[in-house]
């Protein structure tokens, strides 16, 4: 860029500025070759770590495979088995209950915090940092911390509830309270969603509110008619991401209730999430064929739920007419 330009190159630059110069076929080929060169890491990765694994997984799901002996074709037996496996039903139920509990709660709390943040001007930066700090806590560390905080008799949460006369539940041992307790653990880390919502709120033009106020719209109506539509894109985006992540819940539940000496404890069943069961089947008891069928079921469920959400979004998401 810093070299002095030759006459010829100035001429060419002028031509290309006026409109891209009619590229000869040879030059075009060089560009295409170069483009695919730049793309090659992704193409190789896509073939080796996405396409091939999916094909292998599909094949294995029709086999009996324990990683020691060669895969043995069993037809649709794995799929039939998972339909009647009570653990699959349980894991699915747990996972869906958790997702239904967590996703709306996380969206509501994060939106509430973001809206309050949006009202305090420059102080927002400080509080935003505070809300984001738990996100930087490794999930395993957060899980360990909340095992203590949620302890039924001696935990900080129940002791605090005691102060206002509420007798808290046994969050980590009572099967009815394990999922709410996990949801609470995850809610502590919702700072990322808060940051997304705050950014979306800050993009809403102020004059819209002022005009609506002049027209006599109350605060609820302003929220419903202006705020919600204007940030519907961010709401929709976070809904999908939070849902996909919830359906793949693993780290926290596994850290708190599985592995090591807790393996055989009572609480297990309430915390048996789908990916945990998949993990146990694949790497615990080496039922890799069966686990592959489980993986395909998970894939199908996530695809279905995402498709439903995308459809719904067409009705509820307000797009600003770009693309």
């Amino acid at each position, binding site marked *: *860029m810093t070299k002095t*330009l030759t006459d010829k190159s*100035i001429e060419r*630059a002028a031509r290309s500025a006026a409109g891209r110069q009619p590229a000869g076929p040879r030059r075009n080929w060089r560009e*295409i070759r*170069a*483009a695919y060169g*730049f793309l090659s*890491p992704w*193409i190789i*990765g*896509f073939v080796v770590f996405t396409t091939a*694994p999916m094909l292998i*997984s599909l094949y294995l799901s029709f086999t009996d495979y324990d990683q020691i002996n060669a895969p043995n074709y069993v037809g649709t037996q794995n799929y039939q088995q998972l339909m009647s496996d009570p653990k699959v039903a349980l894991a699915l139920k747990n996972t869906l209950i958790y997702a239904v509990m967590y996703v709306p709660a996380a969206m509501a709390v994060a939106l509430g*915090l973001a809206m*309050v943040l949006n009202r*305090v*001007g420059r102080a927002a930066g400080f509080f*935003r*940092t505070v809300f984001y700090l*738990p996100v*930087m*806590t*490794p*999930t*395993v*560390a957060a*899980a*360990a*911390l*909340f*095992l*203590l905080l949620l302890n039924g008799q001696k*935990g*900080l949460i129940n002791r605090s509830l005691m102060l206002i006369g509420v007798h808290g539940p046994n969050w980590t041992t009572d099967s009815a309270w394990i999922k709410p307790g996990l949801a609470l653990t995850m809610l502590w880390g919702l700072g990322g969603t808060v940051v997304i919502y705050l*950014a979306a709120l800050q*993009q809403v033009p102020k*004059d*819209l509110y*002022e005009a609506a106020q002049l027209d006599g719209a109350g605060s609820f109506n302003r929220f419903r008619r202006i705020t919600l539509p204007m940030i519907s*894109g*961010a709401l929709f*985006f*976070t809904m*999908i*991401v939070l849902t996909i992540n919830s359906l*793949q819940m693993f780290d926290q539940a*596994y850290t708190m209730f599985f592995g*090591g000496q807790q393996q055989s*404890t009572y609480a297990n069943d309430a915390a048996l999430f789908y990916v945990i069961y998949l*993990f146990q089947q694949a790497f615990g008891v080496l039922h*890799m064929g069966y*686990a592959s069928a489980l*993986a*395909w079921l998970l*894939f199908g469920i996530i*695809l279905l739920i995402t498709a439903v959400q995308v459809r719904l979004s067409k009705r509820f998401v*307000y797009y*600003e007419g*770009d693309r």
Partner: protein
Amino acid sequence: MTATQPVRGAGIEPEPAGEPLDVPPTAKARTSGGGLSLRRLPYLAVLLLASVLFLYPFLWLISASLKPRTEVFDNSLLPRVWRWANYSDVWSYAPVLQWVTNSVVVALTAAVTVTISSALVAFGFAYFRFPLRNLLFGLVLATMMLPGAATMIPVYLIWHRIGLTGTQVPLWAQNLFGSAFYIFLLRQFFLSLPREYFEAARVDGCSFFGLFWRIALPLSRPALVVVLVFEIQASWTDLLRPLIYLQDPNLFTLPRGLKAVIDTFGNGGEQHWEIIMAASLIATVPLIVLFAFAQRHIMNGIASQGRKG
């Protein structure tokens, strides 16, 4: 678990919604509220309360890591006896220093490889016009929706066949091929660079790789920092992959090691929660430090995620 962080679209200036609302010129005057107005106080109060709820577990983690075993469940935030020995105990019970080193090496390797490879691919999509471009980019976006759990078994088997299970290589090597979310993020950034820079350099005889290396990359430092930091965080906190691939405690990363510490000293174990808390804090502090340095970049990176879903 590979983090699912799909993104769509980057910053777009919003336009007025629905029925056009005319703004009378006098409207501005009514709502001028600079400085610390009284109307903000209730909001600040709510935020202060929420901050306490978010910060207290943190302070409690620090305090519990410094308490004697018998005091861990005590309500007071300040330990009656400060037991710094908890930290030296952790080192003696478990090879924590080794785990810290492993985590640093794995996280840095993962972050550097994914940044370079994603940038290469992103530049390919941003700069060139070529057949199948839109189809291929659609595929990149589609892989963001692919749940990591769905492919973890065959990917494990592939690494097993190559003979690399039991090593740290599978924790980062896939990053050599780029990652959909980062490719998307960087492509958006490259597209925002003025095209004239590249045209001028081409005219000067700069190679395509030169355009990437000497123009695109230096101008994209903020975006590259975002990718680096996101990947360091993802790698640093990952539990599932180390759980699948590592057996030798000396090769553990921190989350995997921490899980082992919890299994030994926590529920059903020896009930040494002060040790677990000390180990948890050791795993947390490096990320907090990273956050302190890269805060502005992180916030911008996250804020741009949700724009226009």
